């Protein structure tokens, strides 16, 4: 059942993304309204899929990379839905849908085959799960911040060049607020993810850092985000600069946390 629900969720995410994209391109308000509904249906199926994971034999662990990515996608979808509920963010749904599809589809493939390797050693009690949950949630929210920043930059450029307009696109102010909210929630979660990761390493080896590339790069990415957060909330950075920073920051974080893992 968990496998089928994962499949359903990934399909719904893809359809939601396509419907929202079509709604923006045509523009068709009905399709734009349908997009979030499909995304929500996908998120519900995805949530139930997680709840029924224990039925699978052997039960997959959240510390498996595909499952961690699937969880990240779920949090990103839920957060983008919350943003769409507060403001007209159909464009965000159009981007989140296909990305979530990719992550969940990969997880489904992994579930249907032999189990993949865990992220690191299995020892460490509950720290590994806590680390993955917190870091994945942080990654998801900072990913949404990056997507909001990306849409902001496109919209900003379009308005500056006085190109064809569509009333269905999100406002710059709305995108900036989404970026700000995602950063404000995502960075503390990432911080907790890094701290729990260090405690995990400590509980299994007696030291906080082992010097592994994943560890080093993650710490550097955290440092980059710390600077971005300080600039955003301390120095009252302009919204365009903040959007560009969110995009660049997430690109770096993705490479540090996921990219290296995939390359290794």
């Amino acid at each position, binding site marked *: 059942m968990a496998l089928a629900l994962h499949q359903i969720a990934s399909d719904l995410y893809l359809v939601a993304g396509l419907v929202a994209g079509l709604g923006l391109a045509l523009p068709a308000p009905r399709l734009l309204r349908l997009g979030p509904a499909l995304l929500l249906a996908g998120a519900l199926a995805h949530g139930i899929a997680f709840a029924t994971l224990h039925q699978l034999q052997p039960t997959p662990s959240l510390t498996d990379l595909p499952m961690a990515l699937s969880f990240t996608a779920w949090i990103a979808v839920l957060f983008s839905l919350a943003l769409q509920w507060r403001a007209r963010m159909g464009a965000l749904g159009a981007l989140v849908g296909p990305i979530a599809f990719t992550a969940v589809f990969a997880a489904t493939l992994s579930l249907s085959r032999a189990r993949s390797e865990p992220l690191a050693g299995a020892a460490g009690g509950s720290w590994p799960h806590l680390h993955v949950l917190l870091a994945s949630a942080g990654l998801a929210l900072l990913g949404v911040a990056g997507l909001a920043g990306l849409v902001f930059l496109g919209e900003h450029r379009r308005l500056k060049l006085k190109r064809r307009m569509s009333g269905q696109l999100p*406002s710059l102010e709305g995108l900036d607020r989404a970026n700000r909210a995602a950063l404000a929630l995502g960075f503390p979660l990432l911080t907790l993810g890094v701290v729990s990761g260090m405690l995990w390493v400590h509980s299994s080896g007696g030291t906080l850092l082992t010097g592994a590339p994943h560890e080093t790069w993650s710490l550097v990415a955290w440092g980059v985000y710390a600077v971005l957060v300080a600039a955003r909330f301390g120095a009252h950075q302009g919204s365009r600069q903040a959007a560009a920073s969110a995009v660049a920051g997430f690109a770096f974080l993705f490479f540090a946390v996921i990219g290296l893992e995939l390359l290794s």
Partner: protein
Amino acid sequence: MKILLLGVNHQTAPIELRERLSVSDPRPLLEKLESDTDVEEAVLLSTCNRTEIVVATRSLAGARLALQRFFRHELGSGRSDASAPELDFAVHVYEHVDRAAMRHVLRVASSLDSMVLGEPQILGQTKDAYAAAVEVGACGPILSRLFQHAFATAKRVRNETAIGERPISVARVSVDLARQIFERLAEKRVLLVGAGEMMELALQALAGEGLGGVSVANRTPEHAAQLAQRFGASAHDLSELPVLLAAADLVLCSIGGDRPLLTRAMVEEALRRRRDRPLFVIDLGVPRNVEPDVDELASVFLYDIDDLSAVASENAERRQAERTRAEAIVGEEQQRFDGWFTALRAVPTIQHLRARVEAMREGEVERALARGHFEESQREALEQLTQALVNKFLHAPISRLRRESEAEAGMAYLEAARVLFGLDERTEREEPGSAASLPGRGSRSREPNP
């Protein structure tokens, strides 16, 4: 029954004539019009761009004459405008009958016949005209059905096409652009630089958005005060511009002068004070009121009159592109209404047939009882039995007649039914004029006579 429509609009009559023929309250005129024996039902639609009367009638020629009299003597009576030309029916007035009239009403309600294609006001105006006709009892089953159908058609056109989605006036384009920059206009402060007619129009468009506050700055403070008073804004002198600029989110400029009033340095200083929050500047002045290089600042979105006009023109073109789809919807809906309207032809024949068979049934029941074939106590059972037989016997031919009469060739079926059942031969039991009547208008209900 026929549907007849006579009217003038922006394509056929100059504004002076349209003004003279316009009606603020159609109710007294509808009551007068309805008293004419050739007019069964009537609706009068009057807007700044059109005055139209649509009637349902049994006598096309009589109704035409009644409407012509009405246009000449009732509309615009008591209003003299020397500049308005004399009403010439051949030039100014258009006439549509039946299908053309249906189609016209559907097109008008859907804003396909409007001066500004896709404008939303016409639907509300059409609804008001219909409500006025209903209020005075001038609207019967045919026009009620036609107008309800027109409202549904307009809704379909609006939902299924993008004909009304993109604004095409400079003021509405400005509001639309502002919505793409700001999430909620209700929280935003607007600064108007200038107090002329252009500013007033823009302010009217913005007023509906419930702004956070409006300031008007002008060279002549009295003019600023006048405009500010009308819209609940604050009036200022141009010397206060740097402070006002820092507080504003949306700035509209239209003020005379040889040199730009808002310089890049002034806007940069305002941005510094407002911590780079986005600023939307609309320059409606010619010559321009804002230095063009202000647009190079990342947080400023500067649109001049040409930029806005280009967007408005592009939107107008897109609306035109939607016209074909909208016309197709109107065509479909007109056919649907036409089917219902044509089927009305069958009503008198069906009712006549029912009356004839019912009379036979009653006669046979009485005869059977009189001859003593049945007891009086068996009357109820006998009535039920014969009624059931009649219903079963008539069900198939009546259903077929209803269905076939919606098509053009349906008249042949009606003729055949009249001959086969001898409906044109009056029996002694039948009262003259006992045939069908349409429901819906109480004592004024009359038989449709297609």
